[in-house]
């Protein structure tokens, strides 16, 4: 049943791509309709009445998104069916290589990620029709966008369904290449082209690493199906090689430090609903791949791997958020924050690996559950924030925080939804981001049960890094909200912004915000449902998670820690309302409007406000070694001795150190190597004939 639903979901995604192609300006649908009108002249008048150009273009715009929404809904249904049903459903399709059919399987792990994929997909497909309207009369046709969106989604779903390495890699490549075209959609901008190329390059390098990792297991297991790989028994060294390759490959796609630098270039370049899918969902597919490889396919785990993952995860988390704090472009900032959140997920996975390999399955399971929960939560709130940023972009065409301000007065609904996303991502109770981070802390606090003293002190230190990360994340998103939505508008077009008119542009974020609150307030049923997932992976189900009832979350036992988000919400609302009632409703005076305090000088303008760069300046100064800052001040002087300053130009840039340390040197090395190899190609026909001749001789020598 679940596999069937998943199949429908994939088919709907593919169909949406085809529908977009057919509805394009040269598409089948338009030709077909013209042909139909010629063929049946007696219906022409009626058809003409019904099918005005406006209606047709609206239909052409909406139909692919309808199918995408259907795909998302079926994905959620399939996911829920797989999670609740437990067990694995398999099927084989007679495609692919002659001796290797496509193996499909849907188990609870895949099912969970189907839910992670489905909810943002529904939201994006609600948001999309309104958002793409501005592209309609642009340079590029919507059919390209629709086609590759469909392929992209179908690729992601097939990755989750794949049960052999061959299909997995095909689906993985479909996902990567389709998203390359989405990043390059607005290719009139040089930055988009550059970002897309970098993205493709990194995706392919990552894919090679994954292929090699699968290759190691396939070599030992004697087959490309996952079943054969599970049976493989590689030596610890080869298992470690496979693990490191998989970590590199999936980590590159997930945007782990130091391989993350492509991510903040590529994700913002795509249209906003695609950015939401890329940041919210595609990174989670990489997380899925890593979990599948490490917890399912590899036969045994070693604590050294856990330490590696923990270190990389912590580094990604804290560096991601530090860089995010210094961005002024809203979508870039959100992309950097994805690096941070993926880092948090991998921190939890590292903890899980350490506990699992040292034989403590209960804590290993807890870490895994925390990682999965954070994946879901990040998918929800990051998509919500990207769609919010998309709404601002659509209404005002403004990227930069430095030009925003006061949007809460102009776009109150978007502002309210964005606030929920902000509070969730800042990990504040009782929203969903807090629950998963709390679970990670609880896992880390059980480090006392580990024998090794080094690990026992490493884990709390990692959790302190996590604490720093979550505090910085709060700073970062308070900055975003305060600068973009509060205060006075910093530019004229922001002051004239309007709420989005298309109802879907609000409905999509509403769905995500509702999920953020729901999973924040009632996380226990969800975590209980994950029992079917953890049982096959770690051999353990969290026994005490609802020891005090479904309102309470007790990760280890009621004595160790308990948290009831529902009661927290209830308490906050009750106390807040009581104060409001007592102070205002009963006796309070009506407040009076007045000018804010201006030190008696008068004339406060938007320019006297704190800017986005100013807000994060203390952090920049404290963590100075992390950043590569370029600050230039140009003075224009005038007068006889050039003493009178007539103008000042101040420029400020914060660059990512990863470029300087890793990307540029390796880029240069590749160029140098290519030049060196290029010496072979002298352009002389005699030399080439010589090469062929020698090759032939060597081959003959080998054969004989």
């Amino acid at each position, binding site marked *: 049943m679940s596999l069937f639903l998943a199949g429908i979901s994939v088919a709907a995604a593919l169909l949406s791509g085809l529908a977009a192609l057919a509805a394009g300006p040269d598409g089948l649908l338009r030709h077909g309709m013209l042909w139909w009108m010629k063929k049946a002249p007696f219906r022409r008048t009626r058809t003409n009445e019904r099918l005005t150009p406006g209606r047709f273009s609206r239909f052409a715009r909406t139909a692919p998104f309808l199918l995408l929404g259907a795909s998302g809904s079926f994905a959620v249904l399939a996911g829920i069916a797989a999670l609740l049903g437990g067990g694995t459903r398999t099927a084989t399709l007679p495609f692919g290589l002659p001796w290797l059919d496509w193996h499909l399987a849907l188990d609870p792990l895949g099912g969970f990620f189907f839910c992670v994929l489905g909810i943002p997909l529904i939201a994006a497909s609600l948001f999309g029709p309104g958002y793409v309207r501005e592209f309609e009369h642009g340079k590029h046709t919507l059919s390209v966008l629709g086609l590759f969106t469909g392929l992209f989604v179908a690729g992601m779903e097939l990755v989750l369904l794949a049960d052999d390495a061959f299909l997995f890699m095909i689906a993985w490549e479909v996902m990567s290449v389709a998203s390359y075209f989405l990043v390059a959609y607005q290719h009139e901008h040089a930055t988009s082209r550059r970002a897309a190329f970098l993205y493709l390059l990194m995706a392919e390098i990552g894919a090679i690493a994954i292929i090699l990792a699968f290759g190691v297991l396939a070599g030992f297991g004697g087959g490309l199906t996952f079943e054969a790989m599970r049976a493989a028994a590689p030596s610890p060294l080869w298992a470690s090689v496979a693990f490191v390759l998989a970590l590199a490959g999936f980590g590159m796609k997930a945007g782990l430090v130091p391989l993350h630098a492509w991510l903040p270039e590529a994700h913002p370049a795509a249209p906003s609903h695609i950015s939401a899918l890329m940041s919210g969902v595609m990174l989670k597919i990489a997380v899925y791949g890593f979990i599948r490889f490490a917890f399912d396919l590899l036969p045994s785990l070693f604590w050294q791997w856990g330490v590696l993952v923990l270190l990389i995860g912590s580094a990604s988390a804290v560096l991601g958020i530090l860089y995010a704090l210094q961005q002024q472009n809203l979508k870039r900032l959100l992309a950097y924050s994805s690096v941070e959140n993926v880092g948090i997920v991998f921190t939890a996975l590292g903890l899980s690996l350490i506990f699992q390999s040292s034989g403590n399955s209960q804590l290993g399971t807890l870490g895994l559950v925390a990682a999965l929960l954070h994946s879901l939560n990040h998918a929800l709130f990051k998509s919500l924030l990207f769609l919010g940023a998309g709404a601002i972009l659509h209404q005002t065409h403004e990227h930069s925080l430095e030009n925003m301000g006061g949007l809460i007065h102009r776009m109150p609904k978007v502002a309210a939804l964005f606030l929920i996303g902000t509070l969730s991502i800042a990990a504040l*109770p009782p929203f969903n981001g807090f629950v998963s981070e709390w679970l990670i802390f609880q896992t880390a*606090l059980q480090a006392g049960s580990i024998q090794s003293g080094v690990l026992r002190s490493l884990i709390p230190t990692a959790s302190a890094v996590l604490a720093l990360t979550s*505090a910085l994340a709060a*700073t970062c998103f308070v900055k975003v909200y305060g600068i973009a939505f509060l205060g006075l508008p910093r530019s004229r077009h922001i002051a004239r912004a309007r709420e989005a008119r298309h109802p879907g542009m609000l409905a999509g974020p509403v769905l995500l915000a509702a999920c953020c609150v729901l999973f924040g307030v009632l996380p226990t049923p969800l975590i209980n449902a994950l029992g079917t997932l953890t049982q096959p992976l770690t051999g353990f189900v969290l026994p005490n998670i609802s020891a005090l009832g479904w309102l309470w979350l007790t990760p280890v036992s009621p004595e160790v820690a308990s948290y009831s988000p529902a009661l927290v919400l209830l308490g906050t609302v009750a106390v807040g309302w009581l104060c409001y009632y007592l102070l205002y409703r009963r006796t309070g005076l009506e407040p009076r409007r007045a000018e804010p305090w201006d030190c008696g000088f008068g004339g406060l303008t938007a320019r006297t406000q704190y800017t986005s760069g100013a*807000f994060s300046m203390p952090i920049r100064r404290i963590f100075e070694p992390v950043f590569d800052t370029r600050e230039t001040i140009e003075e224009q002087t005038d007068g006889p001795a050039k003493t009178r300053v007539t103008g000042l130009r101040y420029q400020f840039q914060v660059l990512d150190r990863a470029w300087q340390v890793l990307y540029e040197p390796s880029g240069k090395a590749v160029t140098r190597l290519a030049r060196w190899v290029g010496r072979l190609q002298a352009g002389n026909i005699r030399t080439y004939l010589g090469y062929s001749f020698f090759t032939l001789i060597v081959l003959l020598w080998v054969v004989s």
Partner: protein
Amino acid sequence: MAWLMAILQTLLFIGLAPLLSGWIKRVKCRLQNRKAPSLFQPYRDLRKLYRKQPIVPHPASWIFRAAPYIVFASTVLAAAIVPLVAINLPTARIADVIVLVGFFALGRTFLVLAGMDIGTAFGGMGSSREMTISSLAEPAMLMAVFTLAMSAHTTNLSQAMNFVLDSGLVLRPSFVFAMGGLILVTIAETGRIPVDNPATHLELTMIHEAMILEYSGRWLALIEWASQIKLMLYGVLIANIFFPWGIAQTFTLNALASGLGTIALKLAVLAVMLALSEVLFAKMRIFRVQEYLSFAYLLSVLGLLSHIILEAAR
């Protein structure tokens, strides 16, 4: 019964918080050879503020109006889960000490947003500084808390106090370090000297006061009250975690009365120490706060390491 006790304790917490502030002010005045106001002056201030008509600056949105209620509610909820006179109350189960840090973060977030809502330089300045300081203080606080949690094998405050009570008077080096860290964090988070000066409106040195500059009337009263509760919360945390003796373990009248008496005594002593340090030290430059807080972090880490090396030996 137990729930009723918990609610009563929370009300006691809220009610006594201004008294503690009054006491600190009084001690500070005496130390500076000034004539002290009455102990009940903070109550009079609050009452006066409630009667005033509040003023909303023009650029403010609903966040500005809602923030005081949210700040107050989150602080009251935090007060509800910290044992004051008795442990083993049911409210301690709602949230553990990590959630407590989360409550503080929630209140702070809204205060900071309200500071940015008014669109003036002061608001943004205070907000930026507050977030910077708190993002450095939070890890230090969590590390101190983790030291405690790893010793007691729980993050539930009530259980942790039980653990300390049960294990009797033992000198733990880790607790000494953790307490040092927590005290430094307390001073930073409650905006006392040398990090921030609660008594000044000197424009360029303000942190907390800069954010709430535009507040007036009942909203200001709520915020002031919330910060008084927050100060008391930190005091109670230090007093009851590291010296829980005297706290009521049963709900008999005698135990409760002695619990109330001991916590009052402990808080009074802590307040004298706070006042003394405020008189002795001068306020720091803003960019020295990081060194101060990294020292607090270092102390907490040392506490954790000494727990792992010295105490958790198997």
